[in-house]
């Protein structure tokens, strides 16, 4: 078996390598190249240097989308993780009945696609807004922002909760019993024993929720579509709109440049976050 694998491994690796190359690596570098071009189709591209990037940085809507996205990503990350951990702690308590039912219920929103969720919540939120006499989502920037926060929480808390439950269950019960004998109350046990031993789980959950926050697209498109006047438009939607909704050949290149900036940004932020939380992880 081992010998056969040693001889034939390239054959088994080939499908993945091919699809990864043609589906990701080549388009990625092609896209990076196109961000320096003016183009209509990828065959009719003329090199224009950094002008696309200059235009992207001078676009006030892009800057607005950036700050909106940053605020959204930060706030949603904090809220998702705090709530998910709180629910996970509640559902891992001993002697609680119906925990499995609760876990299923909390996880369920995750199974519904972003677009569908966006439209469902649009109807819900608009109904609430109209009943209190406020402006509807298409005219209301604050409601748009908070609407997206609520929607994202609803969708992702259950998912992170499952990861936190797995993390909590992997903490040896001896630690908790030792803490009990040592005289720690529930709050002290949480901060001194549970959370430090949960750092690897926290790393994963922060990474997922932070990148999800930055990359949010479907929900943004379906809930507000960026209305009113691009005020609730986040980075991914801004890039999409730049690319597809503007008239004129130059916008394609600018959209492409924005996409590259976006990619670098997300990678950098995630790396910084990973570095910070990884350093807090403990090995048993």
């Amino acid at each position, binding site marked *: 078996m081992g010998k056969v694998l040693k001889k034939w491994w390239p054959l088994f690796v080939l499908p993945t390598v091919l699809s990864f190359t043609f589906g990701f690596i080549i388009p990625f570098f092609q896209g990076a190249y196109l961000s320096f071009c003016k183009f209509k189709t990828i065959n009719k591209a003329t090199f224009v240097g950094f002008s696309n990037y200059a235009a992207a940085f001078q676009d006030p809507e892009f800057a607005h989308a950036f700050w909106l996205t940053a605020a959204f990503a930060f706030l949603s990350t904090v809220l998702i993780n705090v709530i998910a951990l709180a629910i996970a702690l509640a559902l891992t308590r001993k002697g609680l009945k119906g925990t499995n039912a609760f876990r299923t219920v909390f996880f369920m929103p995750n199974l519904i696609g972003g677009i569908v969720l966006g439209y469902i919540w649009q109807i819900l939120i608009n109904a609430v807004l109209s009943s209190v006499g406020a402006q509807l989502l298409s005219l209301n920037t604050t409601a748009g922002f908070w609407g997206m926060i609520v929607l994202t929480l609803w969708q992702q808390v259950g998912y992170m909760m499952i990861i936190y439950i797995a993390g909590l269950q992997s903490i*040896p019960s*001896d*630690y908790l*019993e*030792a*803490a*009990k*004998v*040592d*005289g*720690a109350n529930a709050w*002290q046990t949480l901060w*001194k*024993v549970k959370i*430090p*031993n949960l*750092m690897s789980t926290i790393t994963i959950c922060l990474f997922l929720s932070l990148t999800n926050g930055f990359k949010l697209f479907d929900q943004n498109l379906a809930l507000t579509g960026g209305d009113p006047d691009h005020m609730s438009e986040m980075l991914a939607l801004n890039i999409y709109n730049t690319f597809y909704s503007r008239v004129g050949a130059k916008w394609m290149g600018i959209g492409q440049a924005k996409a590259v900036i976006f990619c670098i940004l997300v990678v950098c932020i995630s790396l910084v976050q990973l570095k910070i939380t990884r350093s807090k992880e*403990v*090995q*048993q």
Partner: protein
Amino acid sequence: MAEIILKNIKKVYPAEKERKHPFGKKADHEPKKSNLQVTDEGVVAVQDFNLTVHDQEFVVLVGPSGCGKSTTLRMIAGLEDISSGDLYIDGKRVNDVAPKDRDIAMVFQSYALYPNMTVYENMAFTLELKKVPKDEIDRKVRDAAEILGITQYLDRKPKALSGGQRQRVAIGRAIVRDPKVFLMDEPLSNLDAKLRNQMRAELIKLRHKVHGTFVYVTHDQTEAMTLGDRIVIMRDGYVQQIGTPQEVFNHPANLFVAGFIGVPQMNFFDARLVHVGNEFHVETPTFSVSLAPETCMKLSEAGVDFGSGQVVCGARPEQIELARPNESGAVRGKIVVSELMGSTVHVHADVDGAEFVLVIPTVDFSRNGGEDFLDGGDIWFKFEPNAVHLFDKATERNLI
């Protein structure tokens, strides 16, 4: 002053209701692991547990796995609820007192050191929670580290320590609290054999340095014999015998204790007790052993009703001596196998289907180049007077 009194302690784990498998499959039934009693309330892990642990006494709970010894310890610690009965520490009923308020310290089998804290922080944690002043914490931690020889590791995380060092830290964490009661749950069983012997000796020394009452759980009878002032032998949730190491070794209360205490295990054989005048002997189809006068006296005093006279006899391997061929009272066996243990050899001999183990000094064994003890060869042996223990065949109780 810390006396622990356990009165009629009982622990029942409620039976889990049979749950339907979500996909309609039948859940596999777990094989029965022990002979624990199962009642309507659930599985009875411990029952009729009565014991008074005196101040500064070292009591060892010992028994095979699943006998309820750890459960008992955890009930004393407050990590398990007591189903019924009373637990007193220092005269105060503590059934419903939280672990932290029982003035106990516990050493876990896995050590349970917090991996996110250094050795120092691990030991200081409990004192910090009690809001002990910083300089006092420092003094106590350093004192304990000194006693255990771990001062140079105080800044390390548990991961950077060996098993033996972690064990010391776990004990150190218990010492700094200066508790009335030390509870230890198989603290040495994760160590290799050599380190275990070493730590066992250190525990004996430690006990004289720190004054506290110890309750120690182990499945290893050697640990129990060497550490305990008294030993509590448990089986299937019941206490079998409580006594000093000498008592349980010399006068095991029943067959189980006789077989559990002592290495190599006591030899057992079925026999008939015969009473002729003032003399008693035990007879098997192939040989007979006369009992020592003291044993006979005790038997007549006890007025045991022999019924059919069927008994189980026990003789410790050390109390069987070699005999010359055809010597009176000697038994002939066939050597099955010999195990060289170092200074002694364990010779397994077959007598009519019953196996006997003899302990022979290696010098004697190899006197003729081992020629006298070839596998398959004959071996003659006899029992020392007083050596034979008698157990009732039905109740398994010691008759003497």
